[in-house]
């Protein structure tokens, strides 16, 4: 058995080395990019030729929510189903285990209270500015989900519930975010015969949100997608953290 495992690992390493050397994992050590990447880089904020532009100076967000938006929609679906599976597996959770764990020292608790404010600001900036700087809904949501995690670690589940974080509430907010994404993506498609996930007006379909509203740059629909995704991701992970902590409490209570 040992020899078999060693053989498998050695074979994997040899195959990967051969693949990298032959360039099967993509061109390495190249000074060029693929032509599709060049297209994205050229057209994402090309104010001189607006046929295919996404109104977002950051190409990654433009790809996520405009050029390859369908990928992201299905990815959000996978996230939704994974969390559904988590909640189904964690049945029979009762609130008698809410007071899980001991509160940390007052130094740690004060530190957490101070830090979560900054984390909230960073998360919101990541989501709001996702279309001009590196960042976006996923990153902002993941950063925002740190807040309930820190509170769970320093205080307890009960404290988090008193603050207003509950699994049901998180689920409801997440569903609202998903509905917002679906509405922005589908409603123009149904009622105005625009493209699915259309962002900027095309010459043949002049439908879209203006990329500048008075003095605020929105990146078309990208800003709204990012905000909805912030709510979706942060609330999903909040629910997962609360459920995992409750499971730990159940283990303690069972013994």
């Amino acid at each position, binding site marked *: 058995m040992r020899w078999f495992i060693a053989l498998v690992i050695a074979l994997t390493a040899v195959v990967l080395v051969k693949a990298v050397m032959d360039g099967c994992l993509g061109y390495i050590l190249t000074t060029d990019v693929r032509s599709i990447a060049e297209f994205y880089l050229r057209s994402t904020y090309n104010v001189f030729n607006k046929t295919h532009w996404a109104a977002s100076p950051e190409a*990654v967000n433009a790809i996520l929510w405009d050029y390859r938006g369908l990928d992201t929609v299905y990815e959000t679906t996978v996230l939704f189903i994974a969390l559904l599976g988590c909640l189904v597996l964690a049945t029979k959770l009762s609130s008698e285990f809410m007071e899980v764990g001991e509160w940390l020292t007052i130094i740690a608790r004060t530190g957490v209270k101070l830090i979560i404010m900054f984390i909230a600001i960073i998360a919101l900036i990541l989501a709001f500015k996702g279309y001009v700087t590196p960042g976006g809904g996923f990153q902002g949501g993941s950063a925002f989900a740190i807040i309930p995690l820190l509170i769970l670690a320093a205080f307890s589940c009960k404290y988090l519930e008193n603050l207003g974080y509950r699994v049901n509430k998180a689920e409801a907010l997440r569903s609202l975010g998903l509905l917002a994404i679906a509405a922005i993506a589908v409603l123009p498609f149904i009622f105005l015969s625009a493209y699915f996930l259309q962002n900027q007006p095309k010459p043949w379909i002049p439908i879209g949100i203006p990329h500048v509203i008075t003095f605020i740059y929105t990146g078309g629909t990208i800003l709204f997608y990012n905000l909805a995704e912030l709510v979706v991701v942060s609330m999903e992970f909040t629910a997962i953290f609360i459920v995992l902590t409750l499971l730990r409490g159940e283990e303690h209570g069972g013994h």
Partner: protein
Amino acid sequence: MEGINYLLATYVYASLIVIVAVAIYGIIAKPNLIKKVIALTILGDTVNTFIILIGYRFVSKPKPPVIPTLHPSPEDIINIVKNGVDPLPQAFVITAIVINLAITAFLVMLVVRIYRAYGTLEMNLIERRKGEEHG
């Protein structure tokens, strides 16, 4: 400059391949389920790094795929096309990271259920207890 770049890239690829091998070893050989999950996350992150590296561009001053101004001149756009790294792998990796996280949470939940049913996380002990139940 070229030689240093080549050496650096070889070093990074070699270490990534070693990490992939270690992760696969962990998934196959470790009997503890939590260790298997940890190895799986290591494998996922290494593969993500591979994908990011594919998009890297060995020009003298590679730029992130962001146009640094809201009122770009034609030179800005030409500059980003000449020096920007590939944004497509980065977009894929964001997707992959979030899915990885969700799947890890799901796996941890499954592991918790297994621990409740059998009282252990060691694969061989679980097999034995299963045999006792049936026998």
